Structure formats: structure tokens, C-alpha cells
């Protein structure tokens, strides 16, 4: 018998209790890992590393208000600007209204320059781009979306409009692959198609996306544009792409605080449950601990054995919980990723894994140390209940 065998046998002393505590830890770690990863995914929407020099210019009164396309030349003329792309949320659906994905009308001449990282432009040929630009009903779709619907280049995609009263039939010209799967759940078609189909959209756009040469120019540019259009009929609100996306996340409420609150509640609950279980388990072994010490096991050695046992118990629960979370993340990506864009990137990051494992071990340490320390400091004679 080795030390680890001794610990393992002690751990399995009450199989039902061990199973229940491992199960509760597993579910708790699973919950925390999934919630934290959800938060990370939400935050990643507002923290796109490729968007550091991109801005959104929209109507100051809200997203439903339009801006004149005539603003475009002014924006383009600013010395900091690399390119400008008119972009309008179309909000159509394919076959089933529940089949949500992002579909937008975009300026076909500048979109590839604007979103070159997201579209993986280096993998797209010049001929493909020309094909798309020449075809007024052409569209480009992300690989995740194409795979989900079984689309391939050359297919016709009929969209049903919900905001605008048109049902465009679009020809897939390019299927792009993005570094982030969440960016692949989108479809873009020619802005002109929207303008021609919806007369009230003539000369208007919901937003302009602007790419600057250097991120350092952002404050100056923002200030100048918004000042330029101040007190006009179409006042502008210019903000970074991340800030623009954050606005959507904020529509969900202070979800970060809610998730952190739930996480804290789960951690406290599991600390109490684990602490109580370990205290009971150790109390039941008071005499046994006294016998170990009588045989010559020092208090420190007994404390170490109990701590390792407690840590092993929580580590098992923690690792199983993380494993479950990793499996669930794969499932979430493949099933919900196409419905909710930020879930397409849903993954349990190494940071989350480490934090969960670390947190689990801290919970185990705290939950075990107090009863174990008390047990090893108790006089041996008390443990043996042997005062003559």
C-alpha cells in the first residue's frame, strides 16, 4: 500500500457521499465554466482585435433612423479615412422566421476593404470579388451559415424581408472563411438591391462603417464628424465598432453583473456544501484520526493526508465539470452558434479552465482545512474517548 492508495481508499469510504459531492461539484463547476464562457463570448463581441480602427457612424437618435448617403463623400474626404462602407441591417429570413442570421445590405465596392480580416480576403481571388460585384443579386455568405443551410457557390438564396417589403433572391458568389466562427454567420448583398426594391431607402443608409488608417486618429475624427453634423436634420453619433456592438450587449441588461452574481452564489453555495460534507466526514473519523496519531502519524502528516483527500475529491468534481462544459461548448457551437452569433465563438478558454480548477482547489482547501486542522489539534485521548 502506498500513501495515495491509503488516501484513495479513505476517499471511497462512503461511496454514495463521495458520488454526491463529486456530482454537486461537477454541476457547480460546469455552471460556473459555462456562465464565465458566456460572458467571455459576449465580451468578445465588443472586443474584436481587428476592429481597433473601425468606426460606425449612425443617426444620433437611434438605429432605426437613417442617414443620407450624401454624408459618404464628406466622410471619405477626411484625411484619417482609409475607406467607408454603407451598411444597412436587412433582417430577412431564409425559409423559417426562427432561422436567424445576420443579413445586411452593403456597399459592394468597399466591403472587402472594410472587413478584409473577417472575410479572409487573402483567400478570396480577385475574380470571385469581381463576380460578386458584377452580379447585382450577388451575395457573400460565411462558411458556418453556408454549411448550416447546405449552400454552395452558385446556389440561389431567397430571403423574406421583415423590415423591408422585398424578398430578394440572391446568388451566392463567395463563401468566406473567418478567423472567428461568429463572423461566418452572416450574409451580405448589394446595397443597390435594397435601394431599388425599397424606394424610401433611396439615398439613405442606417449606418456608415469607416476604417481609419490609424487607431490613434479616432478621437479627433469622431469629434470632427459629430461636430460637423451637429444641429442638422441628421445628427450623427460616431463610435468605435466595439462601442457600437456594446450597445447591443447592453440591451440584454447588465448581464455581466448578473453572471458574476450567479457565479458568486454558486461558489459560496458549493463552499458551504463541501465544507459541511468534509466536516461531517472528518468528524465521523475522529477516533480513527486519534488512532493514526497514536501509532505515530504526526499531526502534520494526518493533516496532509486529509487535505490531499479533500483536494482529490474536489479536483475530481472540478475536472468532470470542466469536461462536461467542454462537451457542452461543442454542442452549443454546433446547435446554437448559427442562431445566436456570439455563441458561434462559444468556447471554454484555457483561462476559464485554469480559473475553475484553481477556484475548485481553493474551495477544497478551505472546506477541508478547517475541520481537518481542528481534528488534528484535538488531544489524542479525546479522540479515543478514553479518560479512565
Amino acid at each position, binding site marked *: 500500500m502506498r500513501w495515495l492508495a491509503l488516501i484513495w481508499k479513505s476517499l471511497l469510504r462512503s461511496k454514495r457521499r463521495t458520488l454526491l459531492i463529486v456530482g454537486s461539484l461537477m454541476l457547480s463547476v460546469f455552471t460556473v465554466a459555462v456562465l464565465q464562457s458566456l460572458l467571455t463570448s459576449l465580451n468578445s463581441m465588443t472586443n474584436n482585435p481587428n476592429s481597433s480602427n473601425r468606426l460606425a457612424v449612425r443617426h444620433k437618435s437611434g438605429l432605426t433612423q437613417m442617414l443620407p448617403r450624401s454624408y459618404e463623400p464628406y466622410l471619405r474626404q477626411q484625411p484619417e479615412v482609409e475607406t467607408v462602407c454603407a451598411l444597412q441591417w436587412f433582417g430577412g429570413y431564409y425559409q423559417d422566421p426562427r432561422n436567424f442570421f445576420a443579413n445586411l445590405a452593403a456597399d459592394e465596392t468597399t466591403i472587402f476593404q472594410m472587413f478584409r480580416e473577417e472575410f479572409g480576403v487573402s483567400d478570396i481571388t480577385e475574380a470571385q470579388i469581381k463576380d460578386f460585384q458584377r452580379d447585382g443579386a450577388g451575395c457573400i455568405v460565411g462558411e458556418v451559415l453556408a454549411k448550416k443551410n447546405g449552400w454552395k457557390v452558385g446556389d440561389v438564396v431567397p430571403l423574406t424581408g421583415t423590415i423591408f417589403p422585398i424578398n430578394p433572391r440572391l446568388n451566392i458568389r463567395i463563401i468566406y472563411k473567418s478567423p472567428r466562427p461568429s463572423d461566418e454567420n452572416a450574409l451580405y448583398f448589394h446595397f443597390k438591391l435594397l435601394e431599388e426594391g425599397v424606394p424610401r431607402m433611396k439615398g439613405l443608409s442606417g449606418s456608415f462603417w469607416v476604417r481609419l488608417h490609424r487607431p490613434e486618429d479616432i478621437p479627433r475624427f469622431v469629434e470632427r464628424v459629430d461636430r460637423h453634423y451637429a444641429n442638422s436634420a441628421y445628427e450623427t453619433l460616431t463610435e468605435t465598432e466595439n462601442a457600437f456592438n456594446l450597445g447591443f450587449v447592453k440591451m440584454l441588461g447588465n448581464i455581466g453583473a448578473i453572471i458574476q452574481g450567479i457565479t458568486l452564489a454558486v461558489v459560496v453555495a458549493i463552499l458551504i456544501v463541501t465544507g459541511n460534507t468534509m466536516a461531517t466526514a472528518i468528524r465521523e473519523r475522529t477516533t480513527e484520526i486519534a488512532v493514526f496519531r497514536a501509532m505515530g*502519524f504526526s499531526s502534520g502528516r494526518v493533516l496532509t493526508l486529509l487535505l490531499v483527500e479533500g483536494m482529490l475529491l474536489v479536483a475530481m468534481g472540478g475536472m468532470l465539470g470542466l469536461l462536461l462544459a467542454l462537451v457542452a461548448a461543442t454542442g452549443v457551437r454546433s446547435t446554437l452558434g448559427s442562431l445566436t452569433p456570439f455563441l458561434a465563438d462559444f468556447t471554454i478558454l484555457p483561462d476559464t479552465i485554469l480559473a475553475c480548477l484553481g477556484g475548485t482547489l481553493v474551495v477544497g482547501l478551505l472546506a477541508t482545512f478547517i475541520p481537518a486542522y481542528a481534528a488534528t489539534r484535538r488531544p489524542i485521548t479525546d479522540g479515543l474517548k478514553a*479518560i479512565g
Partner: protein
Amino acid sequence: MDTPSISLGGGEPIIRLRDVAKSYWREELEIPVLQGIDLDIPVGAYIALMGPSGSGKTTLLNLIAGIDRPTGGSLEVCGSELNDLDDDELAGWRNGHVGFIFQNYNLVPVLTAFENVELPLLLTGAGRGERRDRVEQALGLVNLTDKLRSYPRQLSGGQEQRVAIARAIVTEPDLLVADEPTGALDAKNAEEVLGLMERLNSELGKTIVMVTHDPKAAHHARHQIHLEKGVFDRTVEVNR
């Protein structure tokens, strides 16, 4: 209080107690359990400590075994002055010098007989093979080589106590302390265990100090020491 000192003679003492006292406190109230104990026990003795409940016999046994500390006096056991040892040193001393036999056996229920006996050897640094040899030898001495893989729940009370005895002797200690070793056994098993202890004393030369209420059990010892209210009452040499 003037209390008689006891010296059993017969050579170099393995246990030498001088003016040993032990008190417990209940809030502010001091409850003396042992007072002015002087005791010399030679190597190879077999002592039965007797007396009514609360007379201090188990407390005296615990002091001799180094699992309790006196409030006064000195204890020299197996060549060590126990008052000079800190808790960790005392733990190491117990492992090397003392074997314990308890009334309720106190085997670890999740370990087999073999593993229970092996437990104290984990602290000795003995290799796996050496541990196996010594465990088998100890279980052989108590006639339980056929129960190596049995768990305590699969053993009778008498067998459990024999495993506990094997665990007590596996480190080859100089001193065995037993607290009511037959208290939980029927007459037949009690006789078997007492016979075994007698053999350990007579054949292997183990010094044994046993606490017991049972006159029949005490009759197996060479000497009976009676305590009354924390002091020695009388000593009786047993003619076996």
C-alpha cells in the same frame, strides 16, 4: 498526599515515573486524576492496571504511552524523557517504541487486515518487500495468515483484535499498551487474546501494560497494580 511508590525490580526499568501528576480542568475547577505517582517497571514486565472507573488507570496508561502529557513530574519510557519531546518527536517515538491495543480494535474499516497491519510501517521507511514480510510475520504470530485480504467487517471480534495485536507488534516495539483489550469480546475470544498477549510477553519479551476491569484478564499479567482516586492502592504479584 503521601502515596506509595512502586518498583517492580527485576532489572533496568523501561518505565520510570517520578512524582507524576495529571489534572483536568472543568472551567475554573481543577480535577486531579493522578497525584505523585512514582513507578519503576522493568523490561519484560506484564502489568495489569486495575481500579474503579475514574481511578486514573487509563490516564496513567496514556501518559506512559506518550499520547497525553502530565501536569507534573517526569516520565522516562524506553530510554526517553517524554517531557523533553515536542509533539512531532513524541509521534516518532510512539511509532518506534509503543504498540497500541484498544478495546474496540479501532481497525480502519476500508483497509484489509494486511493493510491495517502495514499502516504503522508506512512511517518507518521500510521498503515494500520488507513491509510485506513483516506484516505476514506479524499476522502469522496471531494465526491470521489466511485473512490477509479480509476487511474488518468480514472478521469476528476476536479476529479483529488479533489483527489489532499484529498491528501493534509489527514495528517490533519495546512496549505494548492495551486498554481493556478483552472488553468487547466474549469469554472464548477473550481467553484467546489474553493467551496471545501472554505469549508475546513470555516468548518475545514484550513489556505489556494493560488496563482492565476484569480480574480474569488481570490474572494473565505478572503483576497487578491497583489505583484508587489517582494514587496507588496496592500491588499484587500474580502466581500463574
